[in-house]
């Protein structure tokens, strides 16, 4: 039973991280209809930024709480800056190009960013400092659920709540929903669509950066390649839930995280990534609209 609960929480933790990344995919797809292939790299850059900032601060002797807060803020700020810049450089000029052009451009951007970090930093695995302390009150259950699992779950829940409030009740959230429904019409009623798209990239990138920092602190090591696999898996989660749908992305991520956790726990850990990819292929073949997505009918 303990093993089952351990796997359950392991799956939920994974799922929460996927959710933080998948939200970026699904929001961008909902608004400009593009698979932002470079999103996994944003997450990787978030992990690297928080690693660098946290290490520098700890060398200069800051207290742990200050390190965590500043590193998280720095990761969010720089990742958002990267997200907005990528959109300006690689996607905006291609907004009216044929469908495949922005996708190829996104793939190029992803390869570029990976190698940029590889060249500027290192190709080795870096050991990430443990930013989350072991809480005393978690002691009795520590063999099943770690403190970092708890922190990840709580943080994700809070972030989701904030995001829901933002989308449902603020001006920019309303503008985002309008833009994703009909971009031309949104322009006609006076919404600055460019600004809405930038805001989407900022929010999505910041979420991914927080996810990157949490998972890096949970697993304890990072390298320049982590974004690729995480990006594909989060994309799988977004498609599973129905791409473009925000609750769908969260649901899909949790389902994917649990599937992976149980499959590796009870079947085999060698094929961890194969499960995710097979799931992706199967969903796209049998239910491309996902769990919560609307099936699109194309009119000619």
């Amino acid at each position, binding site marked *: 039973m303990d093993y089952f609960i351990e796997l359950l929480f392991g799956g939920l933790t994974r799922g929460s991280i996927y959710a933080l990344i998948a939200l970026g995919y699904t929001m961008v797809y909902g608004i400009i209809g593009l698979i932002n292939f470079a999103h996994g790299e944003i997450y990787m850059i978030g992990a690297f930024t928080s690693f660098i900032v946290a*290490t520098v601060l700890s*060398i200069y002797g800051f207290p742990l709480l200050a390190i965590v807060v500043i590193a998280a803020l720095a990761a969010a700020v*720089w990742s958002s800056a990267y997200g907005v810049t990528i959109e300006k450089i690689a996607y905006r000029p291609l907004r009216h190009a044929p469908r495949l052009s922005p996708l*190829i451009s996104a793939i190029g951007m992803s390869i570029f960013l990976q190698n940029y970090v590889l060249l500027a930093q290192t190709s080795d695995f870096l050991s990430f400092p443990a930013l989350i302390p072991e809480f005393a009150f978690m002691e009795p259950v520590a063999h099943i659920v770690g403190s970092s699992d708890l922190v990840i779950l709580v943080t994700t829940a809070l972030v989701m709540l904030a995001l829901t409030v933002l989308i449902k009740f603020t001006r920019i959230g309303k503008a985002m929903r309008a833009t994703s429904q009909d971009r031309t019409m949104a322009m006609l009623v006076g919404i600055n669509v460019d600004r809405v798209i930038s805001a989407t990239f900022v929010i999505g990138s910041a979420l991914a950066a927080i996810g990157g920092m949490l998972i890096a602190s949970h697993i304890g090591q990072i390298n320049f390649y982590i974004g690729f696999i995480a990006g594909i898996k989060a994309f799988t989660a977004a498609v599973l839930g129905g791409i473009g749908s925000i609750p769908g992305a969260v649901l899909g991520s949790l389902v994917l995280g649990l599937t992976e956790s149980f499959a590796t726990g009870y079947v085999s850990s060698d*094929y961890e990534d194969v499960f995710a990819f097979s799931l992706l292929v199967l969903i796209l073949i049998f239910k491309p609209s996902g769990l919560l997505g609307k099936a699109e009918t194309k009119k000619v």
Partner: protein
Amino acid sequence: MFPVKELKRSLFVSIWFAFLTFPIMVIKVDSIERIVTWRWNNMIFIAIGSFVLSILVKVYFVRKERRAASKKAQTVLTEPFVHRILREPRFLYPLCLACLAFALLFPHLFSTYQTNIMTTALMYVVLGLGLNIVVGVAGLLDLGYVAFYAVGAYSYALLNMHFGLGFWVVLPIGGLLAAFVGILLGFPVLRLRGDYLAIVTLGFGEIIRLVLENWNDFSQGPSGISNISRPGFFGMDLSFAASINYIYYLVVGLVIFTIFVVNRLQNSRLGRAWLALREDEIACQAMGIDKTKTKLMAFSLGAFWAGLVGVIFATKTTFVNPASFTFLESAIILSIVVLGGMGSIVGVILGALALILLPEYLRALSEYRMLAFGAILVIMMIFKPEGLISNVRRRYRFKQQPSSESE
């Protein structure tokens, strides 16, 4: 030419990039020794570089606008220079002969090392031409192309190891197996739209690699299969140098064969169906083209070439392991097709030679190879989506008869 406003803008761009790259380019930490290295000179390079680049881009767009304004009246499609030459038999035949002669003499003019590099480049030419059928002509973005390459390589490695089959027997088998896998993959995914198709093929490529890596009994896992025999030459034992030359000539033969087939395909009924499919699926179906069959043909024909090259790869290196078949390999082949010009055969050949040979000869730059590939994909899409040498459609003109019956 340069108003102050533009300079201010460029200054802003350079400050932005200096800020953007600050944590990753400037700070380098060693968490074990607890040392922080500040590399401020990187920041200066980035600032100056982005300043200059932003001005250049601005100039480019201003010029482009001016040209567009002045040429609005005459929108004559000018064929690219290379195609104009190739259209003329007067230039075409001597040029082909010269290329052929150079290719045949190459191993005698240069060292074994150079021949080896050239062999690799020519293998990429074939891979590029194969992927060009799928991406360039039929418009199906395939990000898992390397999977078919792996199928070819592993089919030779395994058949050679278990049954001792020779190169010439496996060459067609490898190609056909890859084509078969292409059909297997093609069947379920053909209903998907462009970008979903790209992701599924990417997932498929990764699945093949992960299976090869983890299924130890079948493929010997990450350590791979070594001691694959080189191709035989009428039962003779060739020396090392001779066998390299032999493989080189083999690949040259394969390139010529590929160019011939791909060229014939492009103007065939099937080739035109692919073009139509790329442009508009629905209109294409309305014209009575069998969508499924046409797409499957593109997939399996593209995979066939990858399988052939895979077999040659296995015999050339005498060693295969899953690390040779990562997503980056697919990305390199895709860059070749995109850089050369999607759909254009000459373009793809030049693209492959440029992308594979340049990093080999500019050793200092080879570290930046993948960085450049990524940048090429983005830059080509923004500035020249049709590639270095854009493909020119065959045009059929309706000649007005100088008749008098219209009156």
